[in-house]
């Protein structure tokens, strides 16, 4: 039994690791030939991979839904990894952030927590800036109608993930609490609404899937569950706790911090959802 349990745990870890890493590997390989060493944003940095993936996804989506002219296609394809890196470096230099960033990283080099936090702050900043730049470039290259079509697709992708997140959360709650169809739907709707305020929906959705109760605000449950049920949910959350570190271990430090410090809200500069 112990052996079976360990084998199952190992398999679970393997699945999670493969799941999270497989797209990263694909894009890290794609970007390896264009990214040069010595820049603030390294090719192996998760935030760079995230941006690079976002850029590629948006270009691929635009090609499918926008009926691009030849010149528009050329303009969008100019947005490769090198372009992104140069743009970010120029932006950092103009803000003096490169110097500041290097100092923070070096000063904290002996202290893992300080170093990681500093990188996390930079990563959030990079992502905000880069997303704004990418969106601005798309805004310039595409017509209003094309931009609307692209936004519609991005929103549909986010909606699919938000629904999945809500379904996963409700399924896990139903392991302890009986919900009839009406209550289930109400709770699902509330969670979807809440998810609309978050950007990294993939991560949130995936973490919610893994047999745990995600860290949803209590207020979501107050209107749908009775007091006794809220207590049961609290117990389920406690029992779910040991599973959570398994998932968070699978994320690299910087990425985990981006998610922890996730302050990018809808209506922010980009409002982009992946």
């Amino acid at each position, binding site marked *: 039994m112990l052996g079976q349990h360990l084998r199952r745990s190992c398999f679970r870890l393997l699945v999670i690791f493969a799941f999270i890493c497989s797209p990263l590997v694909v894009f890290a390989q794609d970007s390896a030939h264009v990214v040069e060493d010595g820049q603030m944003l390294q090719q192996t940095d998760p935030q760079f991979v995230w941006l690079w993936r976002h850029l590629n996804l948006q270009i691929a989506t635009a090609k499918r839904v926008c009926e691009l002219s030849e010149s528009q296609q050329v303009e969008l394809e100019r947005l490769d990894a090198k372009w992104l890196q140069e743009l970010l470096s120029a932006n950092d230099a103009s803000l003096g952030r490169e110097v500041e960033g290097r100092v923070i990283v070096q000063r904290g080099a002996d202290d893992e927590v300080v170093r990681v936090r500093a990188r996390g702050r930079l990563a959030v900043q990079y992502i905000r800036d880069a997303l704004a730049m990418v969106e601005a470039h798309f805004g310039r290259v595409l017509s209003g109608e094309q931009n609307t079509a692209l936004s519609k697709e991005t929103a549909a992708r986010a909606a699919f993930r938000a629904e999945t997140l809500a379904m996963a959360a409700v399924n896990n709650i*139903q392991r302890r609490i009986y919900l009839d169809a009406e209550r289930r739907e109400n709770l699902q709707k509330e969670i979807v609404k809440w998810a609309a305020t978050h950007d990294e929906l993939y991560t949130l959705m995936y973490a919610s899937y893994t047999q745990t109760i995600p860290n949803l605000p209590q207020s979501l449950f107050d209107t749908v569950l009775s007091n006794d049920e809220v207590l049961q949910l609290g117990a389920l959350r406690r*029992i779910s706790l040991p599973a959570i570190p398994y998932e968070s271990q699978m994320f690299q430090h910087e990425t985990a911090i981006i998610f922890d410090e996730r302050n990018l809200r809808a209506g922010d500069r980009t409002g982009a959802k992946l």
Partner: protein
Amino acid sequence: MNSAVFAGVLVVALAMGGAGPLRAQQPLQLDVRGLDNGEELEIVGTYLYSPMRRRDFADYATGRILRRVSEIAGVCDLDEAAAKRLDQAAKADIDRMKRRIQSLELEYRGTPLDNSPKSRAGIAAIQQFKQELETDSPLSNSLVERMLPKILNKEQRIQLAAYEREKAMRRVEVACRVVISSVERSMPMVGDTRRRLLGCMLASDFPKQFASDQELPLAYRAFLEVSEAELAEIFDEAQVNVIKQYRARWAGLAAVVE
């Protein structure tokens, strides 16, 4: 590797703080917050109660039976007599559950966490009990489950089976959606393509009952089972090519389905 040796290595590694990504985390298997007597590395506190307090654990465990009873009552619209019989069966199950916890505690309390036969037997017994508690399938040897054929009429049994099937399919659907979203991290799906792919995956044959750790392998298997003709109908050639790469990568994960 022998399970006991592997467990021993894991315990030592975790106790020493581990290396790499494990280092930043608390040692998962050695969580002793549930202990009342302050002893460390004792199997009852480490495995049975953790991460709850001892006094909360019985409520947590019996809550699972109460949930099952509310589920049956909610789905089947029971009359008063049937509801009463169900309650009596549930009370018996709750008593049995409490006795089971007590007997585990009496038998293994104070047993140190090591490689001795008693420690291994205790860990195995506790893990089996906890796994049973934390999955969604009916409890083994439950009086409520055994009484159901007598309490429910044919129509109610059909209603309950349909509800359970629907619930299982919702679990599979979530896993399928997670797989699709994972593919979409490399390849955007536009229009209704992701929902059409989901439809094809959900049309696969899924077992009537499956453990919670089988959901994702089943979703991978469903992803692999979508025919090339169906894929060609939904996606263009470049997209099908990406999907084929993912299918090759995930073939091993789908093969784990028991």
